[in-house]
């Protein structure tokens, strides 16, 4: 039988997805189900002094209105430290020095205090969507307004210096005090990236129903296990009583990575009302109630020899978090690892603003950080009149100097070589404004990308059934990544079965535990567990008196063995260990983006006409889905470079573009040719498959490669994203 791993395989969840049969959280409708919609605060700071819900409650079809006035009693909806610890609000809080001012996280409907505009202040539950919406419009609120701040101010803000986050010190200094020596060239610039909204196509939704003491949530989450834990803690019930199902998730990108209050709130309301409740976020709620990537400001100073060897790298980030939360963008992560400068100064300063709590967004830290770092490298290359690719080659990090460890595997130089060849990279210094074709200026730009390769323990259950079917179950989710398919490929190879005989079931907390689908860790966590399950199956079969090895002829024998022994089903589990034990290595993925842009300067029109990305992500399990995932990451990078920008009203501090008409994401016509090349060399020191995850690595570096190409085309350096027509004119 042809090996399935490594072959381009169609998604096995394709048919339900193209026929409308895939059931997402809001597609569930249960007997007697109610609908809930939230009301947002219109002010950014202050407090509610009056909330009048009588006319909303009197609206035909409205069943209940909840706010801080009644949620505690009516819903047992209580803010507690144990709950905060499991919530999206808490991520990052431990990085803040403990002190009297330690924030408590925000939970809607627990107090009249307002911390940001768009905060949920009431929820209406009704017999229909129409009635719920009508009810929301009839709530009257009076506020006492305080001054709000959504803009960072270097001099006036109270800056906090966080300590340890994302496995790294947030304040790192190596070598002497940063200074440029005689004979060195340097650049020193400030780069800014805007607030970005995840906006997955599926707005988050939770449909909750109770059956006696048991509650089931049809939810839209990247992690059903973490959600179960949070919801159980909130309801004060044993977690065995909570089941979370997310068989299909309509994209997440980080917005569904953490647990948000609505997921528990639906269950509380369903309990109080004795009927199933569906709480679906509106598109506006997706901008305000499930996190975002914050804006950043980053000062970068690079100092290098005339031959381009970087001696000093300073990267100081100023980033916001919310009034009550903890997450901030750790922009300096890649600066710690790439380019190996002797003198390193990587620091982060955080300021609290009246914004919703930020949250991980596809390569948090690396994405905005790499825009600054890779732009600065390009500026250095131009200062030296050196090919930007050659500059990076000369500063190749042969080991992880921050952790003082070797890489498990690093084929970055091969990415540079293969990417440049496929792109036809000039291979010499190209001065800005030197290529014109017709009415367009043409430019080339490149950047490095890097992303860690984590893994956590996971368990996969395998059920071999005498009818000739094998069922694979784990609580991992497929948020569009291809997990359904690569799991089937793995088991197919291990057992010598065709994929068509396998059924993969995901996203159910009643299945064995697997980590949340985020931080590019699922492949390396779940596939080794699946392999362990297959090994256990063979051992179990051997105990039954028959050894089994996967050969083309053995397809029938594995099932006929069960038939002969009159066993209807064999069930086994396999568990992976997460990161390799007793290692002293750094596990990272690498890559390089090469971009061509075309600019019509008369009208400021920018086209990203060509992208070639070469990536070292270990062995590729499914080139088809892997290529799509990387292309998707590059599309995110194009959006970040050219259009995405959350904007606040300067007077009211409200997010203006909380919708998909005003917050621009790339559309079909924005995307040109994208070629993805995989080095495809297994990282066998990481796991037996040699595979690393690749959900995120497509994003870092892409925006810088584009603005670097824009500089090459036009001579205009874009240091503040997005690079709009206005920025070029």
């Amino acid at each position, binding site marked *: 039988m042809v090996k399935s791993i490594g072959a381009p395989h169609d998604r096995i969840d394709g048919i339900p997805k193209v*026929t409308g049969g895939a059931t997402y959280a809001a597609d569930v409708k249960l007997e007697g189900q109610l609908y809930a919609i939230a009301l947002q605060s219109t002010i950014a700071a202050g407090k509610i002094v009056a909330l009048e819900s009588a006319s909303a409650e009197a609206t035909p079809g409205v069943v209940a209105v909840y706010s801080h006035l009644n949620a505690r009693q009516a819903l047992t909806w209580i803010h507690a430290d144990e709950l905060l610890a499991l919530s999206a609000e808490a991520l990052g809080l431990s990085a803040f020095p403990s002190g009297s001012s330690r924030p408590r996280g925000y939970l809607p409907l627990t107090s009249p205090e307002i911390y940001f505009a768009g905060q949920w202040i009431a929820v209406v539950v009704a017999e229909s969507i129409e009635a719920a919406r009508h009810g929301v419009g009839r709530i009257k609120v009076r506020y006492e307004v305080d001054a709000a701040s959504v803009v960072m101010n270097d001099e006036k803000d109270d800056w906090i210096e966080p300590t340890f986050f994302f496995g790294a010190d947030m304040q790192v200094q190596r070598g002497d005090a940063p200074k440029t020596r005689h004979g060195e060239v340097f650049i020193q610039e400030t780069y800014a990236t805007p607030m970005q909204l995840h906006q997955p196509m599926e707005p988050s939704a939770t449909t909750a129903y109770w059956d006696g003491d048991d509650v089931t949530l049809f939810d839209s989450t990247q992690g059903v296990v973490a959600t179960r834990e949070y919801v159980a803690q909130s309801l004060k019930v044993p977690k065995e009583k909570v089941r979370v199902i997310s068989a299909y998730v309509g994209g997440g990108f980080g917005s569904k990575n953490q647990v948000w209050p609505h997921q528990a709130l639906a269950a509380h309301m369903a309990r109080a009302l004795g009927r199933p409740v569906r709480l679906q976020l509106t598109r506006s709620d997706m901008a305000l109630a499930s996190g975002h990537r914050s804006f950043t400001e980053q000062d970068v100073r690079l100092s290098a020899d005339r031959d381009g060897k970087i001696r000093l790298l300073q990267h100081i980030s100023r980033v916001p978090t919310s009034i009550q939360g903890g997450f901030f963008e750790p922009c300096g992560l890649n600066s710690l690892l790439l380019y190996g400068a002797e003198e390193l100064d990587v620091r982060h300063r955080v300021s609290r603003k009246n914004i919703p709590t930020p949250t991980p967004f596809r390569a948090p830290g690396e994405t905005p950080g790499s825009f600054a770092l890779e732009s600065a490298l390009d500026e250095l290359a131009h200062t030296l009149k050196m090919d930007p690719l050659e500059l990076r080659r000369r500063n190749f990090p042969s080991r992880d100097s921050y952790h003082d460890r070797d890489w498990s595997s690093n084929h970055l130089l091969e990415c540079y070589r293969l990417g440049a060849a496929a792109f036809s990279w000039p291979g010499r210094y190209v001065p800005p404004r030197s290529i014109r074709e017709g009415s367009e200026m043409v430019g080339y730009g490149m950047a490095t990308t890097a992303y860690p390769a984590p893994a956590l323990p996971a368990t996969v259950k395998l059920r071999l059934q005498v009818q000739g079917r094998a069922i694979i179950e784990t609580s991992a989710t497929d948020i569009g*990544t291809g997990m359904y398919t690569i799991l089937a490929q793995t088991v197919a190879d291990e057992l010598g079965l065709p994929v068509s005989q396998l059924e993969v079931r995901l996203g159910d907390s009643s299945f064995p535990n697997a980590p949340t689908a985020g931080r590019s860790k699922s492949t390396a966590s779940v596939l080794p567990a699946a392999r362990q399950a297959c090994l256990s199956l063979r051992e179990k079969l051997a105990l039954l008196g028959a050894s089994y090895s996967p050969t083309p002829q053995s397809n029938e024998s594995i099932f006929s063995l069960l038939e002969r022994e009159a066993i209807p089903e064999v069930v086994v589990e396999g568990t992976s260990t997460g990161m390799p034990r007793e290692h002293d290595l750094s596990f990272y993925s690498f890559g390089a983006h090469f971009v061509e842009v075309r600019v019509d300067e008369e009208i400021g029109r920018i086209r990203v006409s060509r992208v070639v990305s070469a990536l070292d992500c270990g062995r590729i399990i499914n080139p088809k889905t892997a290529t799509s995932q990387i292309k998707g990451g590059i599309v995110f990078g194009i959006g970040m470079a050219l259009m995405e920008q959350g904007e606040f009203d300067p007077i009211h501090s409200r997010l203006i573009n909380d919708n998909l008409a005003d917050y621009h994401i790339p559309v079909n016509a924005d995307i040109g040719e994208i070629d993805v090349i995989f080095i495809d060399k297994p990282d066998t020191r990481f796991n037996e498959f040699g595979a690393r995850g690749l959900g995120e690595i497509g994003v870092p570096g892409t925006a810088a490669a584009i603005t670097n190409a824009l500089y090459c085309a036009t001579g205009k350096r874009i240091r503040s994203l997005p690079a709009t027509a206005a920025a070029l004119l």
Partner: protein
Amino acid sequence: MKTRVRFTVNGDTIDTAIDVRATLLDFIREELRLTGTKKGCDHGQCGACTVLVDGKRSLSCLKFAASLEGRAVITIEGIGKPDALHPLQAAFIKHDAFQCGFCTSGQIMSALEVIGDPLANTCEAISEKMSGNLCRCGAYPNIVAAIMEVKSNGTV
């Protein structure tokens, strides 16, 4: 307030009293339980709710169900079945024209009009005409490839 409306959905006659505030999207999802059509934004900004009304693509979140008197609505459930896929559905799988799958019904309904559009014969033109359907996963090049294949094979 409700009003009596008669129209067809995937060939079946609907003759019922409908809340005048209900959009076509909410009606087909919540009342008819045809949930293949998705609510992405509810404001006509994303295309996930695209259906055919009298053969033309239409955003079902921007239409009141009560305004459909005499019309013929086709949803993704009326296009093909798991064991008898429409060529566009098969092409979407073959070209990996989706990841999370949430925008896919809308993409396919939109593409149904585009494959019959004599002016959409190049990748650029198809890309332009498919730009009302957002895909955050970024499957755009693959969506164009899928549509091109169906167009060039003339299987529709």
